[in-house]
């Protein structure tokens, strides 16, 4: 049983969506009633997107781990107030978003000292890629991700970064493909704009 679920989560959930709406509603109800097995299954369904969104938002995998744990603890705590007539993913990612915001604030202090670490990482990847500019761009883009509006960020992360198609991302996010496409495109636009301004401002330093 567990193995089966594990395989589901190896790919992005939603692609191999194993549950229809009715089954999903049953799963939620069971979890609401305190069924830990059902809740575990729910976590398996959504852990990967939650982790990825958290990871790109916070910028570090360790932070994403913390975030996932906190997200699901909160989900369990508030699951009883979740309205079954609403779509689950937006509710879940709303929580994810708040958790990320909280964590981001909490870690902001530590982040200051991470500057060197980050540059180190960039240097390594730059050497590997042999493309300093691309590396720098990646770094700036990653930096800018958490500034995007949450829906746009989620769409961009799932679709443009993680490579899902719009319908797949829409399935996971609980919206429709057209919306995802629109949101991701807007996000890309904003992010590019951000990277441009960022580069312009810091170029002086880089060339010094």
């Amino acid at each position: 049983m567990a193995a089966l679920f594990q395989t589901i989560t190896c790919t992005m959930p939603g692609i191999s969506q194993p549950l229809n709406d009715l089954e999903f509603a049953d799963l939620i109800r069971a979890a609401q009633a305190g069924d830990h097995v059902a809740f575990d299954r729910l976590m398996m369904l959504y852990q990967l997107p939650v982790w990825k969104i958290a990871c790109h938002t916070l910028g570090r995998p360790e932070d994403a781990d913390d975030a996932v744990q906190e997200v699901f603890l909160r989900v369990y705590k508030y699951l009883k107030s979740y309205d079954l007539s609403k779509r689950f993913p937006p509710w879940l990612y709303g929580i994810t978003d708040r958790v990320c915001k909280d964590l981001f604030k909490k870690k902001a202090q530590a982040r200051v000292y991470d500057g060197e670490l980050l540059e180190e990482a960039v240097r390594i990847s730059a050497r590997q890629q042999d493309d300093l500019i691309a590396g720098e761009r990646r770094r700036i883009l990653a930096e800018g991700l958490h500034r995007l509006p949450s829906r746009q960020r989620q769409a961009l992360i799932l679709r443009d970064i993680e490579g899902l198609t719009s319908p797949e991302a829409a399935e996971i996010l609980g919206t429709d493909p057209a919306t995802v496409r629109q949101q991701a495109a807007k996000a890309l636009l904003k992010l590019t704009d951000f990277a441009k301004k960022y580069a312009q401002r810091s170029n002086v330093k880089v060339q010094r």
Partner: protein
Amino acid sequence: MRCLKLNKVLIAAYAAHHLSQPEAERVETHLRTCNSCRELAEDLQRSSLALQELQVEPEDDRLRQIRARVLDQISAQEQLPERPSIWRWPAGRQWVVGWQMGNVAAIAVLLSVGVLLFWNSLRHHSTGPLAAQMQHLQTRPQPSSQTPPDTRVPERSFKAVPRPGSAAVSPRKDRPGAQSDHSSSQPGTSLPSPIVVAEAPHATTPMGATPARDLPYPSPTMPAPQAPTMGAAMPEVFGRQDQAPKGSLIDQLQTAYPLTKMDATGYKVSKPGTTLEIQLDGIQANPMRSPPFQNTFEDGQVVAGGHSTMSQFMAGGLPKKPFASAPRTLAAKEKVYLLKMEAKDDAVIFTVQTCGTCDPAAIDPTHKPFVASILFKFIKGFLAATDLKHVQDAIGALLVVPDASAAANAQPAADAAQQSAPPAAPRTQQPPARAAAPDPPVKSAPIQEPLLPPPPQPKLEKGLTIDQVLAQLGKPEATATAGDKQIYLFREWKVTFIGGKVTDIDVR
């Protein structure tokens, strides 16, 4: 330069290769002729490519570990079966509805009394429809019929015992399970109002640490038969209390009631501990291997259900599958092993298993074990402020150690207690616990007291004349007249007269 011919979002979608063929061609056509848009598109394409390289994967097994941690934490939280906030909420709502004629002050008074108490009293008095409730409140029912009000009222006065202050709180910090209550209000912070308990007039020592304030209303609900003994028995109890060691309540309880450990089969005792004898009928139990049937003990009665079952119910649904096998009701005099205990802010929970002859050396082959958990309800904060003795007394009303184990601590109260001791209770100290006012009031009595909400007392009734009211309440602080309507404001009451008769009574 800004190009207005093409939506930039469309270009972004194009750059990320998410446009359909005709759309993409349209964009390309434009890009061939527009430099600014082409630059933007190239920029976006670079971003899009760079983003693809940001893809991350969690470490192997990382997510599984996180899930396990989450489930662990959830289970740990649920070990404490009762969640007070959920528990009490519905009571508050009932109250508000029932008192919609009242003013906000009524609600405030209620809160100070402790919503929980009201809930208990509702059950105690077999909750009827709201209308019945209203009637009940407004007509100020006489206390239980067998109780002559005269004897009670003079005999007892009401004191407000503030929630334990910082000094009293300290012991609870050691108690396991206390941390689970962090969400509920800390005593003395958000709920500064006192809890109302009944006390014998002379019993000042027990709660001496906490300042007392007289409340204007007597409590009509104290069971009458118990009243006579309290005066005699309680001083003893209280005198002894001073010597009782303070410390982690759960530790003390476990010393007083060592747990019995069963082996994996559930039949055989691996480590002998406390055997308890049930004093009252009514405990529901599930067959072994099912979750223990949850019972609540309050007002001297065993009520099936109560803790987590109730909170789940309140939260929107009972567990879907009821236990397959039927529960049975344990009879008085049955013996049980004490398997587990938990202490919370406002409750002690015992998990017990029936054991037939209860001889640890020889298993009774014919006995089929049943398990039950019993929640002993106290007022919030009481457990932190009291000591073992009082808790034992409360528990002793339902579960006693059959052998004369109580001898040591029961002696002082024995004489007084025996008069009222129920025959079923071998332990002498426990009758006083139930009967005596000063001590039990704190644990069991308060639960039933608040039931008759303090405000509407038997004395004040609709239809009384102004003189009758004045005779009871004395001089009003203020009066107001509008036509034939008169409003008298007393210290605690607002009484409305129309045509010289009381038509409305409100708590101020």
